[in-house]
């Protein structure tokens, strides 16, 4: 048992170190420790299924241990920025005021193609349009467009809202179940809901979706009768 424990710790530390060493290019959307946990968990979980002669503990214990590590590491990262930097790294700026930081690209082993691909994914075809671009710890690229190239907002254009709604449309009933938090957030109550259903001659169980905002507007979808 102690061997399983020690081997799990060894493999976990080893894979995290390897992932950190490989850098951000190897990561998708997950943080390094999350990716390591995912890889190990998927393999460990299958051990006891594939090999019935092995005791269940041989895979259950390492899986539990990894889950513990993952939670404790993330808790540690929340408390300590230093630990977070050590475990997950930190974002790296690759474009500043339209200028590409080639040293940063080299250290990340990003090619120009990778940068252009990331920009194109955000509908930008010219790096000069970017004020700031950074590679996040999970490997994704965040971009802040130059002010003159950025899409204007409604506020910039001085547009007025076409409805009085201050809140987005939220579901109040989904498949006959009342979402009370949403009702309260939009300033409604169960009596209002009952009134709407009564107006439409519908019971709660006949309602597939009832959504609304903080105005009297709502969207109602009734359940199809099953034949």
């Amino acid at each position, binding site marked *: *048992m*102690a*061997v399983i*424990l*020690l081997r799990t710790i060894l493999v976990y530390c080893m894979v995290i170190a390897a992932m950190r060493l490989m850098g951000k290019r190897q990561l998708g959307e997950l943080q390094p420790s999350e990716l390591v946990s995912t890889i190990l968990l998927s393999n460990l979980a299958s051990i006891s299924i594939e090999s*019935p*002669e*092995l*005791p*269940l*503990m041989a895979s259950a*214990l390492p899986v*539990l*241990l990894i*889950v*513990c590590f993952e*939670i*404790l590491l993330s*808790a540690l990262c929340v408390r300590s920025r230093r630990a977070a930097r050590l475990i997950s790294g930190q974002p790296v700026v690759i474009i500043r005021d339209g200028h590409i930081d080639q040293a940063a690209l080299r250290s990340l082993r990003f090619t120009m193609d990778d940068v252009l691909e990331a920009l194109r994914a955000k509908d930008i075809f010219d790096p000069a349009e970017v004020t700031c671009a950074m590679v996040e710890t999970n490997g994704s690229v965040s971009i802040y467009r130059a002010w003159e190239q950025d899409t204007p907002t409604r506020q910039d254009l001085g547009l007025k809202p076409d409805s009085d709604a201050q809140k987005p449309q939220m579901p109040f009933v989904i498949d006959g179940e009342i979402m009370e938090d949403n009702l309260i957030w939009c300033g409604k109550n169960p009596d209002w809901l009952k009134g709407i259903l009564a107006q439409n001659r519908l019971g709660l169980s006949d309602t597939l979706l009832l959504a609304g905002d903080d105005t009297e507007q709502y969207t109602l979808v009734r359940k199809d009768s099953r034949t």
Partner: protein
Amino acid sequence: MARAKIAAWLLLGILAATLVSSWIVRRAFNTTEQQMLEVVQLCEQGRCERAREKLDELTGKLQSREHMLALFIRRDLLGQIQLEVAGLRAYLDEEHIADLQCEAEHALAQLQTVRRLFFGML
């Protein structure tokens, strides 16, 4: 932070389970080893009937502990140990002392192998 607390408790539980399992396995293996040697000694002293009783006692204990040990040790390895121990019965008479000693050595080696698998570090 509730998750962190659960994880900490889980970690403590895992450590406790590890210690308990090590204690259970060590005790079971030590007893088996000791009783097997006693069986051989009894037979060498000419008390083969008593040796048979002792061996029956040992196989009974192994069978009753199998469920617990199978939580920590591969079932096929446990089965091999049981077979080795049960196989000693055929040599429990004064004519087959040398064979008994040889088979007992074999069973002890098997036990040592499983012990190394369980307690060995790398």
